[in-house]
């Protein structure tokens, strides 16, 4: 998620040639403080009112723990499915030409552009017992709506672009000589893909899948319509926060939110660090 920047010595700030440093710094800092940092104080203020035991009791409440299991489990399934599906889509979009390719490419951004609530009611309608997909799947014994499968489906829908759009540019930039070198050395399609192409895409694939996973953990609008929201069974953590809020239990909502927040940010950080290491190995440095 971070754009790479060039190493600089912090001490050696040359005289600034371009104008607007003060103005842009002022606007940026004001905005970041007021819009991003100040609201966080509300959360920590609320948490400060809780004792450690109370906090622990809230976040380990049986129903809440069940929601973690549902959320993480479904997000993991969605991420794994997306890794495979996203890789397939990116591969097809980069490597082949076929009629309708531009349309397929444009369609990849749909989940980002489509409001999550719209995706939510649409998926719920499609996969309910009398929906287009539900009618097909239920006789096969696959109940999607109001089960964790539906939750995973909604998560997968909203986060598939992360994988496609992270892998696609890396695959595009991959020099053709990699394929050719593997082929001249006698590799079959499958071996060549597994031993040469996949390792090349690995950092992007893991990053994209990781981002998709993080996004799925926090997703709300797309899921609640299809989930059925049965306590202990199909209730996601984001909904737990919402439920606590409707009960005016602000402390409870904050405690659970802090867990979600912490996990998301920690994962994001982990992805960034891991990616940095990998890039270092491929592009030089010692190790």
């Amino acid at each position: 998620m971070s754009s790479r920047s060039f190493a600089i010595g912090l001490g050696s700030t040359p005289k600034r040639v371009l104008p607007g440093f003060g103005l842009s710094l002022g606007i940026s800092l004001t905005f970041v403080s007021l819009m991003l940092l100040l609201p966080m104080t509300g959360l920590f203020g609320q948490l400060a009112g809780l004792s450690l035991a109370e906090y622990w009791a809230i976040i380990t409440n049986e129903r809440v723990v069940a929601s973690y299991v549902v959320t993480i489990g479904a997000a993991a399934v969605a991420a794994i499915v997306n890794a495979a599906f996203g890789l397939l889509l990116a591969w097809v979009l980069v490597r082949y030409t076929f009629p309708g390719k531009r349309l397929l490419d444009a369609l990849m951004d749909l989940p980002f552009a489509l409001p999550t609530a719209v995706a939510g009611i649409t998926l719920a309608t499609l996969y309910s017992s009398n929906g287009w997909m539900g009618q097909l799947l239920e006789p096969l014994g696959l109940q999607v709506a109001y089960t964790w499968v539906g939750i995973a489906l909604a998560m997968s829908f909203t986060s598939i672009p992360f994988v496609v759009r992270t892998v696609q540019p890396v695959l595009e930039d991959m020099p053709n000589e990699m394929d050719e070198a593997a082929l001249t050395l006698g590799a079959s399609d499958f071996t060549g893909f597994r031993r040469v192409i996949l390792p090349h895409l690995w950092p992007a694939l893991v990053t994209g899948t990781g981002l998709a996973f993080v996004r799925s953990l926090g997703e709300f609008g797309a899921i609640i319509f299809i989930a059925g929201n049965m306590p202990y069974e199909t209730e996601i953590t984001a909904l737990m926060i919402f439920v606590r809020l409707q009960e005016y239990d602000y402390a409870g909502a904050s405690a659970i939110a802090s867990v979600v927040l912490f996990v998301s940010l920690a994962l994001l950080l982990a992805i960034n660090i891991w990616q940095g290491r990998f890039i270092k190995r491929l592009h030089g440095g010692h190790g």
Partner: protein
Amino acid sequence: MQRIGDGVAVRRLLIGAAVVLAALFLLLPLVAIFAQAFARGIDVFWANVTNHYTLAAIQLTLFIAVLTIPVCLVFGVALAWLVTRFRFPGRRILQTLIDIPFAVSPVVAGLVYLLLYGRTGWLGSWLDGHDIQLMFAWPGILLVTIFVTCPFVARELIPLMQAQGSREEEAAVTLGAPGWTIFRRVTLPNIRWALLYGVILTNARAVGEFGAVSVVSGAIRGQTNTLPLHLEQLYQDYNTVGAFASASLLALIALLTLVAKAGLEWRAARREVHP
């Protein structure tokens, strides 16, 4: 040219699989939205769209978007200018900070605003004393919408401006151009398409935000209901056609966003071929 996976059978199999899966997974929902919206004919659709509460929701949604865009634009441009044109301590941290809204669950985003500006929050209780209510009213919706959309413009601009470097602006400085002129005459022409795409994305997200808005809006029909909240209520009331009528309006905006993106990308690709 020989490449891995270029055999006819492999190619057909993979293209086929990708197209079928994408059609089922991505295209079918899109079709379903419009099919449901028009399920009982165009008259019912029209009646639902022009319904008083729907119109109020449309109005509020557009109002919020219109206010959000300039704020995000100013912030995005200022931040992109700052981090790509200057080196200063804390630059990396600032760049990381603006990714927070992407990583934070929208419900959590709504919650932190509610905690701060709600009646129980320290800032909220002070505001309440002065008879200013931000939460469960449009200002609250605006604030959380700005929160969730603020990275888009900056994220579009930063990689581009980093790649372009600051040589052109430096040349303009040596020619004696004043600051604002440099931005308007040198920088802006180079970044205008990325800027436009950033605005389009901001707009798409602003009109569609659900999780964060649902926490702070209070969802009062005709007053603090945005279009996504409105369609949720209709859906919960088993008014499927009504819900999908509203959904189809939002889907239309999403489609326009995709078209705009494809158009801008096509433009960029063409400019690369014929510089």
